[in-house]
């Protein structure tokens, strides 16, 4: 049964690459920021429906949460827009490798210092070597 769940997780990641490739194409016809806007507007509809029927959390907590913790959407905008702009120039492979390196480095820093409400987790040599290895991959395919 476990291999099935690994497969689902693999497919989840693959969905992100497909999303990037398809939005790059949409970006050529309607504009990149417009594509980003479409993604967030359509996502609001999809997740809004899911929330109406399946939401079990407490949305009122949002009003009480610190204001910085409401900025996830703005950060997501930077991510999606950068992908839509970059894919037509360098391809999906390079784009995804670069995104992953950015994520790896930043999450190491965030977790090392325990920023943004995360549990402090010291960086270790395996994680640094992982970034080095991923960077080697980026240099090879670029």
């Amino acid at each position, binding site marked *: 049964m476990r291999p099935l769940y690994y497969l689902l*997780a*693999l497919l*989840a*990641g*693959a969905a992100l690459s*497909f*999303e990037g490739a*398809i939005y790059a194409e949409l970006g050529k*016809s*309607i*504009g990149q920021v417009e594509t980003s*806007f*479409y993604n*967030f507007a*359509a996502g609001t509809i*999809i997740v*809004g429906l*899911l*929330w109406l029927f399946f939401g*079990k*959390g407490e*949305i009122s907590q*949002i009003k009480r*949460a610190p204001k910085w*913790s409401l*900025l*996830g*959407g*703005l*950060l*997501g905008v930077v*991510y999606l*827009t*950068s992908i839509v702009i*970059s894919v037509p*120039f*360098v*391809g*999906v*492979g390079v784009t*995804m*490798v670069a*995104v992953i*390196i*950015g*994520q790896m480095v*930043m999450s190491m820093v*965030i977790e090392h210092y325990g920023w*943004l409400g995360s549990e402090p*987790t010291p960086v*270790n040599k*395996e*994680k640094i070597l*992982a970034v080095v*290895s991923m960077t080697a*991959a*980026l240099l*090879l*395919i*670029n």
Partner: protein
Amino acid sequence: MGSFMILFTLLGGITLSAQSSINGTLGRKAGSLETTLLTFVTGTLFLALYLLFFGNGNLGALFDAPKWQLSAAFLGTVYLLLTVIAVPKIGVIAANIAGIAGQLVAGMLIDHFGWFNSLEIHLDGKRILALGFMALALYLIYRGNKRSAAQAEAAA
């Protein structure tokens, strides 16, 4: 232009990682579906404001765009749902790493076959070697995260 794009995309990865931390923190209080909804709503609002003043594309062409292009909006949700299903069964670390592997392999396949009318970049010796480095990187992240988790457990 290529190198500039890569730097820009690195920035995208940085913001994505900051987003997961922030949303993780909020999600523990408000719920993950609620936090995802907030992310989409605020993203829409920021972009709407930007487009009102600086938009120079053609948003109206959205209605003429092929439906397969619009269906990409569901892929983000597919990602979320599959991750939510996989995490309790195989753990966060394994689910994230399998997710990254899927993202990288799919990226290479899309490039190789030029799917979705994208830039066609064939798998050559260098790209295959690069896949080896990526696999090594994933193995190292797995080891590193396992070690962090073991240390956190020992400390607790």
